[in-house]
């Protein structure tokens, strides 16, 4: 078979990878759509989901993978270890799966303190126990000092998809309600506050948490959930743009209804950041039919992780592929996908 050797992204446009290619924004998507997808193309990738689901005897399974490069590795509310477990658990939840087994791949930099690695490993174990998953295989590599940055972790997870659930971006329908499970942007601001070079302090903690318990609660009331996504890198603005583009629907959210803590809002005002674009690691966006939305909201609010859940918007037939927002003063504007890199290496 002939193999196309020409790079689909014009080389004169981006001869090297920049940090913005890892932002989760438009350049990340360009890389995905124009480089990886054409090369690896298959029916599972075309689902454009947080993970892939595939049939097995007696049902369907989901598989997902994620790499973690957060700097610093310890931050208020967590560290790279629990982040790596929770992130992959949540991606499985987004596929409608009950997370079961995880792998863990470590890339360690020469000179890393063993004590720090131990702390990270213990956090991973605690996070796995809390989520009811096991880390059953792994790998360790060490690179020269300067070739990495302390610890990079990759986790891959598998789980069984719960019967009756069919969750994918394409299910998103006009009239559906958009729900967020709590206050946004806490992870990104917590990591930022821990960074050297930013003399900025808050008592904010990362929201890193596994959400399978919260979602089990919802599934027990209804399995009529169209889309589930955890709005990590790029924040809720990027995630909603992705769903909107993948499903060919429009969306409109109401700024007033989006839960943001005063501390996050204050930090964002000072630093010129927009909470809509800041990473979450313990929140879920749900897109559900209007008829099921109040049941879902009640189920969420009945769980400690969903107390602040809110309906923030609605899916529309007009403006396909575009996310709009009704502002606090009553006007309407576009909320675009982020172009550059607001905060590199946030997860």
């Amino acid at each position, binding site marked *: 078979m002939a193999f196309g050797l020409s790079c689909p992204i014009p080389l004169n446009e981006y001869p090297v990878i920049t940090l913005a290619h890892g932002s989760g924004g438009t*350049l990340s998507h360009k890389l995905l759509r124009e480089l990886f997808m054409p090369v690896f193309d298959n029916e599972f990738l075309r689902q454009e989901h947080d993970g892939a689901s595939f049939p097995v005897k007696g049902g369907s399974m989901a598989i997902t993978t994620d790499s973690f490069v957060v700097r610093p590795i310890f931050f208020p509310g967590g560290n790279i270890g629990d982040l790596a477990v929770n992130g992959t658990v949540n991606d499985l939840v987004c596929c409608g799966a009950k997370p079961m087994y995880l792998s863990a791949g470590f890339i360690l930099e020469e000179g890393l303190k063993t004590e720090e690695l131990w702390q990270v490993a213990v956090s991973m174990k605690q996070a796995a126990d809390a989520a009811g998953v096991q880390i059953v295989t792994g790998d360790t590599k060490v690179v020269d000092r300067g070739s990495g940055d302390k610890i990079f972790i990759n986790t891959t997870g598998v789980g069984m998809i719960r019967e009756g659930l069919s969750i994918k971006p394409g299910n998103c329908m006009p009239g559906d309600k958009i729900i967020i499970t709590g206050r946004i942007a806490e992870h990104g601001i917590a990591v930022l506050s821990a960074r050297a*070079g*930013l003399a900025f302090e808050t008592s904010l903690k990362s929201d890193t948490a596994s959400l399978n318990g919260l979602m089990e609660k919802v599934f027990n009331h209804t399995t009529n959930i169209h889309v589930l996504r955890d709005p990590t890198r790029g924040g809720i603005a990027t995630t909603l743009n992705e769903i909107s583009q993948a499903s060919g629907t429009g969306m409109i959210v109401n700024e007033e209804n989006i839960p943001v803590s005063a501390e996050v809002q204050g930090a964002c005002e000072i630093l010129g950041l927009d909470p809509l674009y800041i990473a979450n690691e313990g929140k879920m966006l749900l897109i559900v039919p209007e008829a099921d939305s109040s049941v879902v909201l009640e189920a969420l609010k009945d769980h400690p992780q969903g107390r602040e859940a809110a309906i923030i918007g609605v899916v529309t037939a007009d403006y396909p592929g575009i996310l709009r927002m009704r502002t606090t003063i009553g006007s309407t504007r576009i909320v675009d996908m982020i172009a*550059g890199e607001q905060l590199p290496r946030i997860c």
Partner: protein
Amino acid sequence: MKYIDEYRDAEIVRKLSSELHHTVSRNWTIMEICGGQTHSIMRYRIEEFLPAGINLVHGPGCPVCVTPLEIIDKAIYLAKELNVILVSFGDMLRVPGTESDLLGVKAAGADVRMVYSPLDALKIAEDNPGREVVFLAIGFETTAPANALSVKEARRRQVKNYSILNSHVLVPPAMQAILSAPDSRIEAFLAAGHVCTIMGYEEYIPLAQEYSVPIVITGFEPVDILQGILEAVRQLEAGKAEVVNAYGRVVRKEGNKHARDLLGEVFKVSDQNWRGIGVIPKSGLVLADNYREFDASERFDLSGVNTRESNICIAGQILQGHAKPGDCPAFGTGCTPEHPLGAPMVSSEGSCSAYYRFSRKTGY
């Protein structure tokens, strides 16, 4: 949140809008100076609340946009060819230079770092005594004091490997240049609130008198901007041309004395090249003679820098209020935030970026 919520209040916005509709009797063209105001106007779609006769024109108050291309090329040259640690505010990293941008040379191996404060750049210099560290010190009167402080501190702490690549601009001379242009259509200004926080607003009084334009010191929240516009329109309708402070919770007439003293010590006023506009007399700040040793342009041999302006980008027309982003044939097609041809599409204060992000496709 106090000092935020009441300035983004739908009810107050409605009242101001209704008052504006009652006050306006004809068409008026008003320029908001500051890019932060432009973004707020687009972000909150302020035009939805304005009577049809009010035409808002966006001013040159985007520090990234008016920084000469040559400065960006010099920064790139310093990082790429002279192996210095080039430290910058984030917005500058993606501004296209003649050949590349700072993010591109960083990806290719140059040591380019982003900070929120010039004092962090000084810290980098202290932590890397064997390397030269250059801070790309750009901006208006708002950022200049912190940049000045980094130089003063460098001297006090005897940090010999720190210098700044300097491109500071001043607002009032640019307003004068805009008003004295023969084809100027600006009938009133919303002055940049944060610039006045530093400098006060006494220098605007002769401008308002000489050119008979109302100048309203204006903030950045939707209520601030509508109040600024309402005050300007009231004056225009009454035939007045006064300087009025509509941002009293932040701005005092004399400004911030400490910051002004610092500017007076470290910098001196000089003629300055504004990208897209040209040289405006006495519109810039350069290091005072006593601090010239911290000038990266003098410390390093930058004669290898070769600058060529793109002939597609109409940023100059946009910055002077002659054109809107949608008038540019490249807007949203050849020029987007991820592939910008000019600075106004990059900067968080640039008009093109504001139009693209908040009301893409139209550009109007």
